């Protein structure tokens, strides 16, 4: 449960906003806020997750510190968002432990890599791990297909369940009904807003990030990451189809569709993540929340490692480094899947849910005039 004083503080700041309303043109948070006169816990959590941290309101606000009202909405809502992630993502013990803890994420990566690498070394032996082989099935001589697929499926099921549980808890806490959850119209409109990152567009000039001047850079970097991940997902799915239905074994030719998609996705992720990290280094820390920054950095670095080792594996797969790179890459992927629910990725679930809720409220208010 978020600390009472944090809820009180967000409530206090939003009370200033609701008496002002100058920012209502920026994003969904302010129109959603204006339909309320006072804020209960569920309102605050909903509004916090509706915020894209574009920071336009911070620079537009005449009441930011050193003004005595001390309004800093991006910071306050980010603080509450991390609390939301930690409270709702299951199991709570793990989510409390992980959120904002970069050291623990690092240890998980190290442990997962060592585990995969060590297991292969012990079970398959050094000659297999460090040997040079190529052609179809080369990966599976290092790690048998079943030994690769079964843990991957188990880990996927795990993070989906952990985040799914979080999404359901969030939905219940913010008074969403089961029927609303399957409102197709609201879902589609929320999807449009999410995949277009419309709330990072600002007034058309972009969000106020990394500094006071509006820029589209962050939106584009984030889009590279988002669509890069989707391309990699498509690549993996296609590869599974090749393997199971077309009887073709990885590694596939450089010009095959799975490799082309995967490469494009990987490059997009590397460029996008590098851009986001570079922007974070330069970013004005005044509207930033320190704990959220740790959560962001941990996930971005892990994503960079995943895509980077994937691309390295691709380019060096015909050399003796293949075995090492494969085990390191899979170890990192395992760490990614394990920590996915307890890091920045969680925003996908909560932000999406908040956007759907916003669309439901909007259509409700337009129906009732």
């Amino acid at each position, binding site marked *: 449960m978020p600390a009472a004083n944090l809820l009180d503080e967000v409530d206090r700041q939003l009370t200033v906003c609701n008496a002002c309303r100058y*920012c209502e043109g920026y994003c969904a948070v302010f129109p959603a806020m204006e339909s309320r006169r006072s804020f209960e816990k569920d309102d605050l959590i909903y509004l916090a997750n509706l915020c894209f941290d574009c920071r336009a309101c911070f*620079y537009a606000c005449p009441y930011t510190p050193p003004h005595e009202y001390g309004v800093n909405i991006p910071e306050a809502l980010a603080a509450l968002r991390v609390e939301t992630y930690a409270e709702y993502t299951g199991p709570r013990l793990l989510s409390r432990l992980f959120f904002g803890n970069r050291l623990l994420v690092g240890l998980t990566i190290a442990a997962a890599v060592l585990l995969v690498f060590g297991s292969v070394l012990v079970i398959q032996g050094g000659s297999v791990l460090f040997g040079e082989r190529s052609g179809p099935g080369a990966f599976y001589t290092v790690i048998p297909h079943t030994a690769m697929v079964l843990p991957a499926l188990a880990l996927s099921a795990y993070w989906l369940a952990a985040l799914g549980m979080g999404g359901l808890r969030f939905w219940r806490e913010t008074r969403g009904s089961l029927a609303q959850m399957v409102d197709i119209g609201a879902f589609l409109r929320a999807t449009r807003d999410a995949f277009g990152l419309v709330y990072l567009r600002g007034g058309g000039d972009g969000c106020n990030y990394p500094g006071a001047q509006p820029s589209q850079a962050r939106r584009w970097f984030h889009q590279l990451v988002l669509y890069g991940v989707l391309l990699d997902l498509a690549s993996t799915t296609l590869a599974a189809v090749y393997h199971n239905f077309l009887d073709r074994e990885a590694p596939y030719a450089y010009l095959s569709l799975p490799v082309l998609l995967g490469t494009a996705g990987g490059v997009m992720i590397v460029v996008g993540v590098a851009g986001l990290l570079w922007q974070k280094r330069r970013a004005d820390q005044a509207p930033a929340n320190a704990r959220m920054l740790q959560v962001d950095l941990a996930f971005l670095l892990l994503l960079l490692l995943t895509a980077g080792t994937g691309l390295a594996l691709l380019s060096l797969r015909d050399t003796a480094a293949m075995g090492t790179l494969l085990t390191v890459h899979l170890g990192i992927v395992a760490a990614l899947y394990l920590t996915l629910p307890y890091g920045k990725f969680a925003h996908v679930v909560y932000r999406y849910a908040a956007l759907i809720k916003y669309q439901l409220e909007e259509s409700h208010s337009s129906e009732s005039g």
Partner: protein
Amino acid sequence: MLRMGRRYDVVIVGGGNAALCASIEARRLGATVLILEAAPEAFRGGNSRHTRNVRYLHDGESNYLTGVYSEEEFYGDLLQVTGGKTNEALARLTIRESADLGVWMTENGIRWQGPLRGTLQLSRTNAFFLGGGKALVNTYYETARKLGIEAAYDSEVCDIVGADDGSWAVSVEHDGRREAIDATAIVLASGGFEANLDWLAEYWGAAAQNFAIRGTRFNRGGPLRTLLDQGAQAVGDPREYHAIAVDARGPQFDGGIVTRLDSIPFGIVVNKEGQRFSDEGSDFWPKRYASWGGLIARQPEQVAYSIVDAKKMRDFMPSLFPPIRSDSVRELAGTLKLDPEVLEGTVADFNAAVRAGTYDPTALDDCRTEGLEPAKSHWALPLDEPPFFAYPLRPGITFTYHGLKVSERAQVLGGDEEALTGVFAAGEIMAGNILGQGYLAGFGMTIGTVFGRIAGREAAKHARR
């Protein structure tokens, strides 16, 4: 930042909307420009920080304005609020020159908000800039920076002295030192003097200490006083100001829009003695809200209380502070430290005088009092549904009307109607020429932008002769 002893073609005194518009226009004509802003950077922008929209002439729709707003309608609106206290030539000039404001502002980086969601219904006459006044000020400072305009913060102008060659020495207090900057032309855009309580006390006595100043604490009127002392001609009644009722619990300076209270027409207002003193329902709130600052300023200790019962609590905008709540009028009086007998009597008399009618907040309805002095002419409903709520009120000064008389070229005029050489004025410091009393939403920004541009242009022309 501030390079003392240097000569600039144009020195702009002030750092709000009018100052910025003047600086941009002067720089575009090739002048070297320095902005002297008295506030630190975090509080730059004067009262423009608290603005939200601009009113301008337009003959058609745009993405952020509906319908047509003609010169005659615009001037008619101005005549109505000022009661004729305006200079027609300057007023019509402002209105006509406002026709391209939307385009000009957009070209200089301002972004707009689509039609509003019901906070205010002004979308035909007024365009709302995205994010409000501080966003606008930030945008203009960035535009100015890119153009090569210099800006110095924490730089209060304390004197302006004419030199033999017709140029000016501007004396600035910066970093605890006083130094002079040479200027060929000066634009005074330093606002009114409403944040100078001592100056207000010259007309209001001790009552001035109980006023809240809604905007910047840096509008102390130093440059205005300097020019008046040197024989510049004044306009506007120095005693008059635009003032509304604000929550008495707010800060004395820079409380902004959020301490404003819209509860008055939904209940009654009593003074420190527990007595009503004015008609809470004489006209629609937007037309009347600005009269309450002056009304409360004339009450004992400059304080009043807006009292509303449970049934009306959701009918007005939420405000910064929660209302003071009690289950009975008597108890409420105790919390407010008013005489319980008197307040109960005031409420009972009011309730007894209310005549049943058809309540309609969108019309001048027939719910009114009879035989009560002062009357409540509309929207009068008995205060009988507990709990009862109260907001303490005090006068919140928005701006002063007293300023410098100017020509159509924004030149500051001397007592003989002769223009002072190379001295121009824009914004609140000269708004009293056009707005002798009352206010039109978004019109301060119109005057600031139009006269800012004129002053910048004329100053650059003067300096580059």
